[in-house]
C-alpha cells in the first residue's frame, strides 16, 4: 500500500455516500478546450458539479488536472466552450472574474501565503479589501477559522515561522475567510512532509463534513476513499473515467485507469 492510503483516515467513520449532495448546480463546464500555444492541454471537458459534491481529480502529471481547476477561477484562460460558476459565466469580463474569484476559494500546492504579512493579516486582507468588512469583524472571523484549523496561537507570527503543514492550514483558513461556496485544492499536500499531510487532510475532511463543495486535485487516495463522492481520472487533457470511489478503486473500467491505479497503489 502507498503512504497515502496507509494514512488512517477511514478511522473517522464517515461514509461519503451519507453526506448530502443537493441538486443545485455549482459548476457547469461544457465542451471546454484549452491550448498552451499549440499544445492542446484540455480537450472537450464536460463536467457538472452539484453543490455539496466532493470531487477528487487524479491522473498522471501533465494530464491537465491542475489546469482544469485553475480554469474554474480563471487563473488560466480557456479558449473554447463554457464555464459557469455559481451562475456566472467566465468570460474576459473582469467584473465576472472578480465575482467568481471572491466566491471560489483556492488552496495551492506551495501555500502562497504572503510572507510580508502576519498570519492574521493574511487572513483579513481579502475580507477587508474585497468584501469591505470592517477590520474588527474581519479579525474575529479570521480567529474563528484559525481556531478551526487549530492554530489560533500562531495569529501574530509570520508565515516563515510556521511549518509546512501549519502554513497550508493557514492557507485553507485564508480562503475560508472569504466565505467561499466552492473550494478548489491544487495538490494541497504534495509539498508536505508525510507527517504533516494528515493534519491538512483532517482539516479538509472537516470541511467536507460541513457540506462544502470541493474539487481536489490530489494523489491522496485515502482521502478520496474517505470523503469523495466522485473520482475523476484524467489523462492527456481529457476525462478518461469518473465514478464513485468504491467502483473507481475496486472496479476500474479503462485500461489507462487500471495502469495508473496499479502504479500508485501497488508497490
Amino acid at each position, binding site marked *: 500500500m502507498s503512504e497515502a492510503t496507509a494514512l488512517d483516515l477511514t478511522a473517522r467513520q464517515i461514509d461519503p455516500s451519507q453526506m448530502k449532495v443537493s441538486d443545485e448546480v455549482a459548476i457547469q463546464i461544457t465542451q471546454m478546450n484549452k491550448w498552451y500555444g499549440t499544445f492542446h492541454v484540455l480537450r472537450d471537458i464536460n463536467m457538472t458539479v452539484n453543490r455539496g459534491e466532493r470531487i477528487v481529480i487524479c491522473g498522471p502529471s501533465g494530464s491537465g488536472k491542475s489546469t482544469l481547476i485553475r480554469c474554474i477561477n480563471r487563473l488560466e484562460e480557456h479558449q473554447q466552450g463554457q464555464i459557469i460558476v455559481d451562475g456566472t459565466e467566465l468570460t474576459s469580463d473582469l467584473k465576472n472574474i472578480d465575482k467568481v474569484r471572491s466566491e471560489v476559494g*483556492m488552496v495551492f500546492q506551495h501555500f502562497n501565503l504572503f510572507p510580508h504579512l502576519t498570519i492574521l493579516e493574511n487572513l483579513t*486582507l481579502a475580507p477587508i479589501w474585497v468584501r469591505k468588512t470592517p477590520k474588527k469583524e474581519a479579525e474575529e472571523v479570521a480567529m474563528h477559522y484559525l481556531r478551526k484549523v487549530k492554530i489560533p496561537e500562531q495569529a501574530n507570527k509570520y508565515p516563515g515561522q510556521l511549518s509546512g503543514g501549519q502554513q497550508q492550514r493557514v492557507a485553507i483558513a485564508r480562503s475560508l475567510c472569504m466565505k467561499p461556496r466552492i473550494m478548489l485544492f491544487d495538490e494541497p499536500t504534495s509539498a508536505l512532509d508525510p507527517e504533516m499531510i494528515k493534519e491538512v487532510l483532517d482539516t479538509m475532511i472537516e470541511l467536507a463534513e460541513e457540506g462544502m463543495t470541493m474539487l481536489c486535485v490530489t494523489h491522496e487516495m485515502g482521502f478520496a476513499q474517505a470523503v469523495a463522492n466522485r473520482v475523476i481520472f484524467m489523462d492527456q487533457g481529457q476525462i478518461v473515467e469518473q465514478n464513485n470511489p468504491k467502483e473507481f478503486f475496486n472496479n476500474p473500467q479503462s485500461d489507462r485507469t487500471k495502469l495508473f491505479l496499479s502504479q500508485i497503489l501497488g508497490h
Partner: protein
Amino acid sequence: MNTSTSTFVRTEMLPEQAPPLTEAGAVKWVRENLFSSILNGILTVLGIVVVAYLVIGIAPWLSRSVWNAGSLSECRQIIADRWGEGVTGACWAVIRERWPQYLFGFYPSHLYWRPVLAFVLLCVAVAPVLFDRLPRKMLWFSLIYPAVGFWLLWGGSVWVPVMAVAGFAIGYAAVKVVQPVAGTILATIAAVLAPVLWWLFLAGPAADALQSILPIALQGVRSREFGGFILAFTIGFTGIAFSLPLGVMLALGRQSDMFIVNKLSVGFIEFIRGVPLITLLFTASLLLNYFLPPGTDFDIILRVIIMVVLFAAAYIAEVVRGGLAALPRGQYEAADALGLDYWKAQRLIIMPQALKISIPGIVSTFIGLFKDTTLVVFVGLLDPLKGITDAVRASTDWKGIYWEPYIFVGAIFFLFCFGMSRYSMYLESKLKTDHR
C-alpha cells in the same frame, strides 16, 4: 574503547569545559581575522603601513586648523605665528566666513529664514515616511509639503502651489466620476488627462484670479539666486520623492500585457538609461528653449528637476523590475484567487515585497541622484561643490585656497549619503519577515 563496533550506552554526561586559550578572546580574534594565513598576515601589515602613512601625512595638517580669519593670507599668517614659518595647516575659516553662501548661494540674506523653515518642515514631512512608529496622520502633512516647500523657497502668490495641488484633487475627482460610468481603464486615462489639462491651461489663470481677489504672497525669489546646499537639497529631495513613484509605474508598465504601455515604458527606460545625465541637463537648459514658444518662462530649476526625475526613474524602474522578477508567480496567483483586482494586488501584495527586495538598489540610485545634483553646475546653476567653491576662490580674500572647501562639501555629501545607506540597512532588517 571503540564505540562504533560494540554496543554502547552512556551512563554519565560529560561536563562542559572551558575552551583552550586559542579559542577565546582577543587572541582568537586576531588570529582569525588578521593573521589566519601568511598572505593575510602580509596584507594586514601592508594595510597598517598604508593607514599609518596617510595619518602621518594628514594629521599634522589637520591639527593645525584655523577657524577664525578674514582671508587666506591672514589665515596663513596665523598658522605661521602659531606653529612657525613654513608649516602648512587647514584654513577652515573659509567655511566659517562663507557659510551662508555655501548654504544659500545668492538667496537674499534677509529671507534666509524661509529656506531654514522649509528644511525644518521637510524633516517633519519626511519623518513619518521613514519611521512608521510616528502617528500616521502626519502623512497628510507629508503629502502637502511639496506645495508648502515650494512656496517658502520661491515665494510669490500662495495660489500657485494651491492650484497645483488642486490638480491632484481634480484627478481624484475624475476617477470617482468616470470609474462607475466607463470602467477602470478610462478612469485611469481621465486621472492623468484631467490634471494635466488643468495645469496647462486653467491653473495659471485661476491662481491669478484668486490672487486678485485675495492677495497673499511672499517676496519672490528667482531660481538663478538659488545656490549651494539649498539647491542640492531642493533638486535632490524633489528628485527622490518623484522618481520613486514614476519608477514604480514604469516598472509596472514594462511588465504590462498592454502592448502600447509596454513598448512606451521599454522605449523610455532604454532611451534615458542610454543617455548621459549631462546631455539631459543640456537639453533642459538649452534645447527646450527652441521648442517652447518664445517668451515662455519655464523655470530652470524645474526643468533640471524634471530631467533628474526622469533619469533616476528609469534606473529605479529597472531596479524594481528586478524585485518584481524575484517574486514567485504564486504570489500573483494567490492575490488573484482571493479576488483582489490588479491595483489592490500590486499595492498590498506585490509592491511591498518587490520594493523590499529592491531597497539596496533603490537607495543606491537615490544616493547617485543626490550626488549628481552637483552636475547642475554645467547648466549655470551654483552647486555647492564647484559653483560656490569657484565663486569663493574667485574672491580676492580666498584666492588660492584649495583643499578645505572641497573637503567640507565632500563631508556634507558623505554625511547625507551615509545616512541614506544606514537607513536602508535599518529598513531591510526591520522588514525582514521571511525568517530564512
